[in-house]
């Protein structure tokens, strides 16, 4: 009789486990910590040097300590300071070059009136504009290629990060959240790679070409067209990103709630049906949940930090360059170089568009990782 009861209980437990399975992943914390430590390889050497010691050690405690050290106000300011020094130096170099060229253009503009003849004055004007644009275009190429490279590395970083996030979700019993969340994150990744990565350079190149035509041609104004293109482009990207983020937030919230309910039901049934040890299963799961929470925090916050380190140098660089162009445009207007002032203003606008797109990509991934960090552990 007693054996029959034990057998019945075992069959019932197996049936309940099959119906309400708590999908806890078998992947160990150390494996996830190892995979996480490899993410820092997606950073440049200069950016990797900004990581505290122990971040890429592959051990959870050391990574957590490194994160704690880096996220203090001193740590954050030292990172920003290290990035800013190089950027400010480059921006000042560009400003010096532009100021020199503008002063020379102003002198030539004043002297050309004594040259006599509209034809020769026009040729000197063309020469001045071509020289200034050639000087500026080399910098434009550098920043465009930096932005494109940053988007590529961001995509590869997130491509490596998403499976880790999925594993951590699954470890905590959030199985459906893992599938829904990783699908949404892959959608983000696809949009960044296909839509942003392949359109930002052609759009900026078109706007730069329009600015050149306007500067060298002089008569036609393409400013309205380029302004409309930039605004439409940034609005469309922002709308797509907002939709994806809303979808990620809503779907993970709903699936986390469903996972949590399933886990609680399974815990309740096991505590009620299984004699003696049924109650301790809940305690064990709470302990697992606590360690998963720590792991999720380290992976999530660490991932946010890596994305920030990847995006911040490019964003700050674009901000500084845009400021330089706006300053130079103002100086050109003061010196009476109307054509050069319009050119610099237009090119500053192109940098504004590029800045908006790169910052948007970084912020969207940071918000997505924040949603990952804030999602509840089902087995808690």
């Amino acid at each position: 009789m007693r054996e029959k009861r034990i057998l019945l209980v075992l069959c019932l437990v197996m049936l309940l486990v099959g119906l309400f399975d708590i999908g806890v992943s078998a992947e160990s914390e150390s494996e996830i910590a190892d995979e996480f430590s490899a993410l820092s390889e997606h950073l440049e050497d200069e950016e990797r040097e900004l990581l505290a010691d122990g971040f890429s050690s592959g051990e959870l405690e050391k990574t957590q300590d490194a994160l704690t050290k880096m996220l203090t106000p001193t740590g954050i300011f030292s990172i920003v300071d290290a990035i800013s020094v190089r950027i400010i130096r480059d921006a000042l170099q560009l400003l010096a070059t532009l100021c020199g060229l503008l002063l020379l253009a102003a002198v030539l503009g004043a002297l050309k009136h004594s040259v006599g003849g509209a034809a020769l004055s026009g040729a000197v004007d063309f020469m001045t504009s071509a020289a200034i644009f050639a000087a500026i275009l080399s910098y434009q190429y550098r920043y465009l290629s930096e932005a494109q490279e940053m988007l590529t590395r961001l995509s590869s970083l997130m491509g490596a990060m998403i499976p880790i996030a999925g594993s951590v979700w699954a470890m905590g019993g959030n199985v459906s959240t893992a599938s829904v969340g990783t699908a949404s994150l892959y959608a983000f990744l696809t949009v960044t790679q296909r839509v942003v990565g392949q359109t930002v350079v052609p759009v900026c190149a078109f706007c730069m070409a329009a600015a050149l035509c306007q500067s060298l041609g002089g008569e036609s104004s393409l400013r309205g067209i380029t302004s409309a293109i930039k605004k439409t482009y940034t609005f469309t990207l922002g709308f797509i990103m907002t939709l994806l983020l809303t979808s990620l937030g809503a779907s993970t919230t709903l699936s986390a709630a469903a996972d949590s309910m399933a886990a609680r039901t399974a815990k309740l049934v096991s505590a009620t049906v299984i004699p003696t040890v049924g109650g301790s299963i809940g305690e064990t799961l709470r302990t697992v949940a606590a360690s998963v929470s720590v792991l999720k925090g380290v992976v999530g916050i660490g991932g946010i930090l890596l994305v920030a380190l990847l995006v911040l140098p490019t964003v700050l660089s674009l901000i500084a360059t845009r400021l330089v162009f706006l300053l130079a445009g103002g100086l050109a207007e003061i010196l009476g170089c109307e054509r050069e002032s319009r050119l610099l203003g237009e090119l500053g606008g192109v940098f504004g568009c590029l800045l908006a797109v790169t910052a948007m990509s970084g912020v969207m991934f940071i918000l997505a990782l924040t949603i990952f960090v804030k999602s509840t552990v089902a087995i808690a």
Partner: protein
Amino acid sequence: MGEALFRICGLAVLCLAASLLLARMGGEFVGLVRLGGSVLLFGVLIFSLSEMLEELRGLFAASGAEKYADCMIRALGLAFLSAICSDLCRDTGESTLASGIEMAGKLAIVWLSLPLVEEIMETAAEILEIGT
């Protein structure tokens, strides 16, 4: 440069006086006096400007725009040379020659700007390669 200005003004006044006197006496050598005076005058000017141009080159070398500043200054020099020669031709009544000189000057400036246009095209091609 201040001293050079005195010399230039003095030379200009001398040439003017000489051409006025010659115009009263006969007028045969007026054109030659004008031509000689202009050549001397601009020779002194160019010689005086050489120091200033070297200093400008040094300033632009520090800012990293030496190559472009060089092109711009040469273009201005070509424009001035063309303008002076065409004005001299017009003063002597040779307007066709003057037009020819202006055309040559314009073409020389455009020729000087061709390397810049080539650089712009190459950079534009590199930018388009980024996107593909």
